[in-house]
């Protein structure tokens, strides 16, 4: 692939990505105070956050194909998530919860595979 066609390829991808980010701001600029927009501004972030959690944990499917069956990282993922939640409810220190959970997860997956 030539340099110029590679640049065009990257430019198309950049424009398409930026478009998805900027369209609401351009299309609805005058409606920022509309009660529906405020409603979404209040309720959408927590909704999206939990959906992102579910998405991140999607590989954990213990009953896939009707039998007990999870990937190598399935149980460590759930155990580490529980550690994060418990640590956070206990100490409410975001960094501690994240480092504690991630450390535990790394220890678990690295020891099961090697």
């Amino acid at each position, binding site marked *: 692939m030539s340099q110029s066609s*590679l*640049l065009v*390829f*990257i430019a*198309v*991808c*950049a424009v*398409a*990505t*930026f478009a*998805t*980010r*900027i*369209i*609401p*701001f351009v299309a609805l600029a005058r409606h*920022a*105070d509309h*009660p*529906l*927009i*405020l*409603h*979404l*501004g*209040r*309720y*959408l*972030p*927590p*909704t*999206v*956050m*939990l*959906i*992102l*959690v*579910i*998405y*991140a*944990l*999607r590989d954990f*499917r213990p009953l896939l194909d009707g039998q007990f069956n999870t990937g190598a*990282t399935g149980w460590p*993922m759930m155990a*580490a998530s529980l550690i994060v939640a418990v640590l*956070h*409810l206990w100490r409410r220190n975001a*960094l501690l*919860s*994240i*480092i504690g*959970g*991630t450390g535990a*997860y*790394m220890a*678990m*997956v*690295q020891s099961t*595979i090697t």
Partner: protein
Amino acid sequence: MSLPRAWKEAGTLTLPVMFGYLPLGAAYGILAVEVGMPWWAALLMSLIIYAGAGQFLAVALLAAGAGLMELAVATLMLNSRHLFYGLSLLKRFQGAGWRKPYLIFALTDETYSLITTLPTEHGNDHGLAFRVSLLNQVWWVLGTIAGVLAGTTLAFNSQGIEFALTALFIVLTLEQARRLRRWLPFAIALGTGLGGVLLLPDRHLLLGAIGAASLILLFHYRLGRDREATP
């Protein structure tokens, strides 16, 4: 607040994203070089596209020799969840001035999550939102550089470190629940999220779940208005 302290504060907030973006950025860099992209092109993508899953997709499409139209459509589809992010930030970004274009450009899943969960005393602190957004991209670009330079010889056993992003989303969900004290958004997320996992293929999962959740919130809003309208 002095400038160094302000950046330090933002740095602490983005630390969990750093743990996720450095290894993921490196993974992207390694992949890009492996499929034969020159290092500068891999880096340019992290600078001007800046979308995790989007860049992995672009590299895959490039390697497969996909056309520009295919690339544009696939990118729009994959990233269309950002439409909903913008909807809920219209008010938040109002008055951000010269920072606004960058705030919009740099709106990844992780940056959106951090900005919408900032402590309330920062209500509309555009400076902080800007510093958080910029630092997140710095982590992503540094990861990319490490990936294209080190290639597959990266020695540190970092397997599993990307769990930091999952942990970040869990912590932010708990913080959001603490602040809002309403069960509704979490019930909607459970329904649409689990429904998506069961019914949709991976690549449509996020868009499907977030789109469905936005629709339900729209109905919820109309229901509330109808109730107000009837005496």
